[in-house]
């Protein structure tokens, strides 16, 4: 038991109950949870995100500080690792692309152990595997949800739905990404809970988004496959939101929908203030996006000011006679 994850779990459950109670009491609360909070959340997300990135943009990066993972550019006969230690812009672009799309730095994850009387390093793939499963599932889920926000629905959404529902199990058809999202988030959570070393360094800010995303995936799966909600009315409402003609449709929708929407609103509004900013931060990490060309190109610190110097020659000119008197060696007689 650990206060960090128990408090996060409790927070998510209480937030869910608040939204559910609000949806049940109807009227004003449906407008609050269905219209006001989602708009506020989107606004906070967009403006907060821009603010955070501009804050980073203002931070000076005077020197090249890439973390390198291979042989740097050197003599012609020494083979350079062009992607892991890039010295050109193209190399950096390839390195960044692979990092963002394939999470290469997580792929290198290793574990240190003492085995018998010797130290051993072991390649551990689980973090990378859970992360890539989680992120791509989330992407597929987000793109699929655009069917509620577009009219007519653009071609790529049915395409993704076809691929995601390729198993053709059940009706409504089971989507692979829904379960892999829930599984990915749960596995990442278990990793933090069960591995002592990782548990030790985990904070409430690590657990909260995981519980929140598990809550989102769980309510989504419940609505699609189990308790059911009225999809046509939901789309009427979401279309109202994105066309700036908000309204609560007549007839029942289902309380779980409001819980789902409230969770998503919180997640979206929480992004700019949390670790989830790695979404934008990955593009701006100076240890990845700089070329290692410090030895080929001189990088002058842009805020260097002219420094007043007093050279040894000038010093000797000032004190020559006294130095000779004291018997100190001088360069010019």
């Amino acid at each position: 038991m650990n206060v960090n994850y128990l408090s996060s779990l409790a927070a998510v459950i209480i937030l869910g109950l608040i939204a559910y109670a609000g949806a049940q009491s109807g009227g004003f609360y449906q407008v609050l949870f269905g219209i006001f909070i989602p708009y506020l959340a989107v606004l906070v997300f967009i403006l907060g995100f821009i603010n955070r990135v501009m804050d980073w943009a203002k931070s000076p990066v005077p020197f090249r500080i890439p973390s390198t993972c291979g042989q740097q550019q050197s003599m012609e006969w020494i083979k350079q690792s062009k992607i892991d230690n890039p010295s050109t812009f193209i190399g950096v672009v390839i390195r960044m692309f692979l990092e963002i799309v394939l999470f290469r730095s997580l792929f290198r994850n290793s574990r240190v152990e003492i085995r018998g009387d010797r130290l051993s390093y072991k390649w551990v793939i689980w973090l990378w595997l859970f992360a890539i499963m989680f992120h791509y599932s989330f992407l597929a889920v987000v793109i699929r949800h655009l069917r509620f926000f577009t009219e007519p629905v653009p071609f790529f959404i049915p395409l993704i739905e076809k691929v995601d529902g390729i198993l053709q199990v059940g009706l409504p058809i089971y989507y692979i990404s829904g379960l892999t999202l829930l599984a990915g988030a749960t596995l990442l959570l278990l990793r933090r809970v069960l591995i002592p070393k990782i548990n030790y360094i985990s904070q409430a800010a690590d657990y909260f988004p995981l519980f929140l995303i598990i809550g989102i995936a769980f309510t989504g799966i419940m609505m699609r496959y189990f308790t059911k909600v009225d999809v046509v009315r939901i789309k009427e409402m979401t279309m109202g939101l994105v066309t700036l003609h908000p309204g609560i449709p007549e007839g029942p929708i289902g309380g779980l929908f409001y819980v789902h929407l409230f969770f998503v609103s919180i997640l979206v509004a929480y992004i700019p203030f949390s670790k989830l900013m790695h979404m934008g931060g990955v593009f701006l990490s100076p240890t990845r996006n700089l070329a290692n060309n410090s030895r080929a190109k001189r990088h002058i610190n842009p805020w260097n000011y002219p420094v007043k110097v007093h050279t040894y020659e000038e010093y000797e000119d000032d004190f020559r006679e006294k130095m000779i008197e004291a018997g100190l060696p001088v360069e010019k007689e």
Partner: protein
Amino acid sequence: MNDKPKIILGLIVFVAVFTFPFWYNHLSASAPPKVELTEKAKAAKVCVAEKEFMRREHMQILDQWRDTVVREGKTIYTDENGKEYVASLSNTCMDCHSNKAEFCDKCHTYTSTDPYCWDCHRYPEEKK
């Protein structure tokens, strides 16, 4: 080193991508589809379950029917009131709801649902 122009360009892309639903629809939404009943359906008044339930869960009933008919050979479905129906999409559902374009397709298209019912099933020719 000054990367601000590049970063601002990135932010413009970010805003454009994440506000996609707002600009894609040109801020106007067509009215949500209304289910249209045929004369026969109106006259019958009752379906195999009540209206709100059918709005949400019709697909599950059809899935259940497929399993019971094809795998267990039970072709009769008994509803909550004890009334019996032949479990068949083409012959029972579409007997009343013969207007596929108006009754099925409208909402399915609206919510980007592409049921594979009609990969196998024939649907009755619509009478105009």
